[in-house]
């Protein structure tokens, strides 16, 4: 194995060597490695290319902050695009490749962009590609082809995802010292605790720490705490779980990755689990992110954050370089120098501060590490790997140029510009942040939800303070939950004496910032100091404008490394201080979340409930294709062998007109309305006079919105003096019930009425056609069905085929017809019984399509098809339904000038003049198809069919002033540009007198 791998240490399972492939080459590593540590161990420097300039890039960080090492893992449909190599756990056989770089990451044609990088400065696209106008399309294609990182998998996801709703007293986000301590205190005190950490192990920074906690090594302490927590029933430990979103009212979303760390095939179960947590209290212990320093060519492979270097050495037993320069403005990076030194690397510290570091400085000196104080690294040499740095003396004045007098050869630069608390979740929760001048970072302000922040995330950068902070946060959270905190001792950790950090947001160079080699602020998007300065020069001065103009913080890392530096550079340009410039908005997701995770189990046929009637199985058996109506599946038609839709529908329609047919109408909404005030209530809802209805009678009723537009319709029946049975349209059922309840509860609470939904209780079978009476009679119907005893538009309780039913004598086809309402438990039996009894009479089941044709022949409208929310009952010629005696919902609106306009679109019938053409539904109607564009339209076709019984096409339409225009000829403007002549008629094509339904 390559020389970068240390022979001992780390948290690897050295007994488990594994192999993985990157960009087609195979490498060795150990279980416990990440892809990043595996690559570093093998001396792979270039892992990606930057977005715009295509500069070769190496690994910078060791966790979620990584901007450069964006890789595609796996193949085919199981590929995962855009992973950070630093977060990919290696398994044997893992296949990964760089997301950018063509033909290869080591030789990228796109790198020519670098040569013209000055032209490609921020805002470049807005200023060019405009000439000639029509070529933009081609320019754009080129731009698109070179953009993007990963590739979409080439098939449907082979894995599945699940959701889990959870509740807890205390949710702890982040399992470093602060989070672990908080969880321990909360758990021992008996609270229901969820602890989530995005890494594969709990411990956070302690996993790479050489500190003693209490009197044990930090990772050992972690192990003890985790072991204790995992034994407790009131604790849920979620590792590999990113708290990615903090929403209102302490709703927190966590993405748990269950199988990505396993070789494909090794794993069962869901790939990821979405935890939807409602927490009484949240403790945010996300830690802090180390900032890079901004110097020329600071993006070269081999330049890393100091803490990442320490992490690779201590946790992964990889020393990323043989000779290193540690460049810092604060004490913490000396730890990296010590770690490098211990790992056998040559190391020099360049400290921008005149006085260097305190305790760690002494330790470094003791270890014999050379330290240059009051110096800066102002440039880096090497292209695909660092070969050295240029160092200059610096007096602390940012406006001065420096003179790089020293060259140091090295293959690794470990940089530290200080630390930024991870205030992401706090900010998402609505909290603001304050600038802490001592620590030179934003720290979270007061929580606005039931939350607190602990540890480095709160600006406490020592382990001792982190442990104490976690402890205190838990105690406070427990108190807020009304629980007593158990006394838990906070383990001792030695505090390290430190010198103050020196603000250093941009390292001075040999030339001024606009001319010097690029000083990168945002690595992924190639945003440099010069870009920010350019944005300011061009007037894009607000931090949000700078973000959008330069793409600062726009990448997959969302500026975790670069944002604060960028804002500070901006502040300098504007001559303002950093808090005045402020931050951009922190938004979910903390790290990106899989779409499939959001979808969870709601995929495929479970995307949306598929509602079935109680007779559904019979229809399936009969081979009926289904029509989707809202969530329902309804039989569309019942084809016989060799029949298509049209043939079947013609046959079904003729059967109803000439003999008898049956249809499943169970999807209609049904409501039981009763109480002493039910009449008064329904008077206000329906447009017709309710009081006049006799018990046992039915009526067609409509409801209007308060805007006067038709909202829903259906047959309603008076079952008793104080009881009605209301039906609604299929799509309107839920809405109508809620609408009725809202009036009852909010506006007229004095009315004593109870509403109960019966939609699922009753199934409805329509039996229609001249023979329908005979069919029912043959089923031992217990009531007389003759015309006199059971008149049209009445309702009876009866027994049919031995089953209790509500029998309606209503008709949506215009034929003699009955609707059988039967307990859904017996509906399939009833369906079969009617079918059998009807057989001698030629019984024909029919579907929604025939139903539509039959009702259209009669001019009956379907709400939602013939109406669209802009149609009044007057437009539909339903004046006869509008009571003059009373007020009802929507009545006032009908008197508005626009509703009285004589040229409103009104319901009419249409006949094709050629007697053949069935006009597509939706087609617009015009008076003059030759008129110049825009051609005035006088209406549109709402329903259109071939009528088998009339042997011609018929259509319903809404036509301006249509009622006055019977017999006039207008034109249907077809999609292909042609026009078909049609004649306006009455919308009732069949049995205008309504004799057939009265027999």
């Amino acid at each position, binding site marked *: 194995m390559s020389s970068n791998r240390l022979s001992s240490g780390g948290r690897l399972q050295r007994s488990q060597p594994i192999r993985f492939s990157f960009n087609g080459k195979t490498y060795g590593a150990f279980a416990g490695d990440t892809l990043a540590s595996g690559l570093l161990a093998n001396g792979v420097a270039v892992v990606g290319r930057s977005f715009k300039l295509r500069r070769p890039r190496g690994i910078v960080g060791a966790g979620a902050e990584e901007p450069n090492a964006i890789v595609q893992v796996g193949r085919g449909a*199981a590929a*995962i*695009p*855009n992973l950070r190599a630093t977060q990919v756990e290696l398994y044997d056989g893992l296949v990964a490749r760089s997301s950018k770089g063509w033909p290869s990451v080591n030789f990228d044609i796109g790198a020519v962009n670098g040569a013209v990088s*000055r032209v490609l400065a921020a805002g470049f*696209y*807005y*200023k*060019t590609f405009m000439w000639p*106008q029509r070529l*933009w399309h081609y320019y*754009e294609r080129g731009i*698109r082809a070179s*953009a*993007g*990182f990963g590739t*979409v998998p*080439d*098939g*449907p996801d082979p894995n599945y995802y699940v959701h889990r709703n959870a509740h807890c007293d205390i949710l702890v986000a982040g399992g470093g010292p602060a989070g672990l301590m908080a969880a321990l205190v909360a758990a021992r005190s008996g609270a229901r605790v969820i602890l989530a950490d995005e890494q594969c192990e709990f411990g956070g920074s302690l996993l790479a720490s050489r500190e003693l906690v209490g009197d044990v090594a930090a990772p050992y302490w972690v192990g003890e705490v985790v072991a204790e927590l995992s034994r407790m029933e009131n604790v849920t430990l979620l590792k590999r779980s990113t708290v990615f979103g903090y*929403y209102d009212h302490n709703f927190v*979303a966590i993405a748990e990755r269950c199988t990505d760390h396993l070789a494909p095939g090794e794993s069962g179960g869901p790939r990821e689990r*979405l935890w939807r947590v409602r927490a009484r209290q949240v403790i945010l212990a996300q830690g802090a992110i180390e900032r890079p320093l901004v110097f020329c060519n600071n993006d070269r492979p081999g330049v890393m954050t100091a803490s990442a270097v320490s992490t690779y050495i201590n946790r992964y037993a990889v020393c990323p370089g043989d000779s290193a320069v540690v460049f810092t403005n604060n004490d913490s990076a000396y730890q990296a120098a010590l770690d490098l030194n211990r790992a056998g690397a040559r190391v020099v510290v360049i400290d921008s501060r005149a006085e260097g570091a305190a305790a760690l400085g002494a330790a470094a000196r003791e270890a014999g590490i050379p330290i240059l104080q009051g110096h800066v690294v102002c440039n880096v040499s090497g292209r695909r790997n660092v070969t050295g740095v240029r160092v200059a003396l610096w007096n602390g004045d940012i406006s001065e140029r420096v003179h790089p007098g020293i060259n140091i050869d090295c293959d690794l630069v470990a940089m530290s510009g200080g630390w930024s608390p991870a205030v992401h979740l706090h900010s998402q929760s609505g909290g603001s942040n304050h600038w802490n001048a001592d620590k030179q970072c934003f720290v979270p302000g007061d929580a606005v939800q039931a939350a607190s922040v602990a540890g480095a995330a709160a600006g406490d950068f020592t382990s001792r303070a982190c442990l104490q902070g976690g402890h205190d946060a838990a105690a406070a959270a427990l108190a807020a939950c009304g629980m007593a905190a158990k006394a838990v001792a906070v383990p001792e950790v030695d505090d390290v004496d430190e010198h103050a950090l020196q603000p250093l947001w941009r390292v001075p160079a040999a030339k001024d910032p*606009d001319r010097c080699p690029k000083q990168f602020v945002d690595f992924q998007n190639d945003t440099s100091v010069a870009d920010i300065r350019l944005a300011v*020069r*061009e*007037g*894009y001065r*607000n931090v*949000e404008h700078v973000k*959008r103009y330069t793409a600062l913080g726009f990448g*997959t890392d969302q500026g975790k490394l670069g944002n604060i530096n960028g804002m500070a550079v901006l502040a300098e340009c504007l001559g303002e201080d950093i808090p005045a410039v402020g931050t951009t*908005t922190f*938004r*979910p*997701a903390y790290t990106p*979340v*899989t*779409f499939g995770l*959001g979808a*969870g189990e709601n*995929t495929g*046929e479970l995307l*949306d409930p598929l509602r079935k009637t109680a007779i559904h199985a019979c229809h399936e058996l009969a081979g009926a294709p289904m029509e989707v109506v809202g969530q329902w599946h309804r039989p569309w038609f019942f084809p016989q062998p060799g029949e298509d839709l049209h043939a079947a529908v013609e046959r079904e329609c003729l059967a109803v007109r000439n003999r008898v047919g049956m249809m499943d109408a169970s999807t209609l909404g049904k409501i039981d309305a009763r109480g002493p005030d039910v009449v008064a209530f329904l008077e206000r809802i329906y447009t017709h006079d309710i009081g006049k209805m006799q018990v046992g009678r039915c009526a067609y009723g409509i409801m209007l919105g308060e*805007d*006067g537009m038709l909202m829903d319709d259906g047959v309603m029946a008076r079952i008793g003096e104080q009881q009605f049975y209301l039906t609604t349209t299929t799509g309107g059922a839920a809405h109508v019930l809620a609408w009725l309840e809202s009036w009852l509860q909010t506006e007229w609470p004095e009315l004593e009425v109870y509403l109960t939904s019966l939609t699922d209780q009753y199934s409805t079978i329509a039996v229609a056609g001249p023979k329908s009476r005979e069919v029912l009679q043959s089923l031992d119907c217990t009531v007389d069905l003759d015309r006199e005893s059971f008149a049209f538009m009445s309702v009876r309780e009866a027994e049919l085929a031995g089953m209790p039913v509500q029998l309606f004598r209503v008709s949506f086809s215009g034929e003699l017809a009955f609707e059988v309402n039967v307990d859904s438990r017996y509906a399939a039996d009833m369906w079969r019984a009617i079918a059998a009894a009807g057989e001698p009479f030629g019984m024909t089941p029919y579907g929604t399509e025939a139903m539509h044709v039959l009702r259209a022949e009669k001019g009956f409208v379907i709400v939602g*098809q013939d109406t*669209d*929310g802009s149609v009044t009952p007057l437009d539909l010629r339903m004046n006869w339904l509008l009571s003059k005696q009373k007020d009802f919902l929507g009545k006032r609106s009908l008197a*508005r*000038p626009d509703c009285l306009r004589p040229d409103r679109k009104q319901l009419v019938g249409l006949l094709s003049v050629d007697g053949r053409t069935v006009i597509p*539904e*939706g087609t*617009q109607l015009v008076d003059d198809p030759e008129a110049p*564009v825009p*051609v*005035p*339209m006088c209406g549109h076709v709402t329903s259109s069919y071939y009528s088998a019984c009339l042997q011609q096409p018929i259509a319903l339409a809404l036509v301006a002033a249509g009622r006055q225009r019977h017999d006039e000829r207008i034109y249907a*403007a077809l*999609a292909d540009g042609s026009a078909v002549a049609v004649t306006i008629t009455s919308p009732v094509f069949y049995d205008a007198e309504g004799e057939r339904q009265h027999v």
Partner: protein
Amino acid sequence: MKKYSALSLVRNALGHNRHWQPAWRKPAPKQEYDVVVVGGGGHGLATAYYLAKEHGIRNVAVLEKGWVGGGNTGRNTTIVRSNYLWTEASLLYEKSMQLWEGLSQELNYNVMFSQRGVYNLGHNLQDMRDIERRVSANRLNGIDAEVVGPAEISKAIPLLDTSASARYPVLGASLQRRAGVARHDAVAWGFARAADALGVDIIEQCEVTGIRRNGGRVVGVETTRGNVVANKVAVVVAGHASVLAEMAGMRLPIESHPLQAFVSEPLKPALDTVVMSGAVHGYISQSDKGELVIGAGIDAYNGYGQRGSFQTIEHTMEAIVALFPSFSRVRMLRQWGGIVDVCPDACPIISKTPVDGLYFNCGWGTGGFKATPGSGWAFAHTIARDQPHELNAPFSLQRFVSGALIDEHGAAAVAH
């Protein structure tokens, strides 16, 4: 204004980009303007630009409480199309479309208007009826529109699930080929730069806190940067319309709701057009940078929080995975919200008000980005002439009294 050109790019590059001019000045508010435009979104900036350009009214201030383009202009999913249902709406949006087609050149600022086509999918018979109706109307109005079948759709959008077994199978779609997307920020910046060049003062960090009236007419505004006198005040503040209306003692037929959107991480080109679906409720396009840009629905409740509920996002992810099963493993990078001003008929208000000299342009709800140039053009006319242009006359406040609503819920079914 110094023109952008290939030459200027090279020249400036040679000068280390040190000689670029500010895109717009940063003037302090003057005491008096002929017209004060409240709101520095795309619509407000376009209004100022067309006031200056078409009507010669250059003593204009745009007052923006934050940074220009920071409202919905900066947070929308950038779909531009004109295939609305009703003639009134179609003609207004089509006017806008025509302006879009030359906008980069007119503004000398590349707004990256990309006419890659928009597909509105139909998943059931009623969807198809509505599509036929809309396409038929569009054609008669001179707007390009077609009805396309599943085979053609699947060719144009290979990753879309067009199988018959889908929970919501694709039965067809309407297609407007001239429709597409544009770079939202560039629209605000381009209009700002062009308006500034014509003398308009664009004043950021200047919140209007009061509308001063004398008798029945407007005399100016109060702002966080002092009072400004003006005989004409034009309010274009999208989600904040009701807040401004209250300052003038009015209530509007508007509710403000959070509307969300999200983007994926950047991907290699995977989707060359724009796809919208009402039945599964989602829509998606891919930006030139490579992110999938995805719009979610509105949250039902009133809100000014520029954020929304997570279940709305989950629902949209379901929709996207249903439409594009291979996007299941793609990841959401960032989600955000905007505050949209929703009108009862899903159509805007571009109108005079009961207060003389006070004009409102609002109610664009989930779909006004596409109207940016047209809206500004028509609003400028209304302000300059103190009467609406015939294109926006139907969009008056009066329609709520007369009942002449223009119901575009169908064509606007998916928030976009």
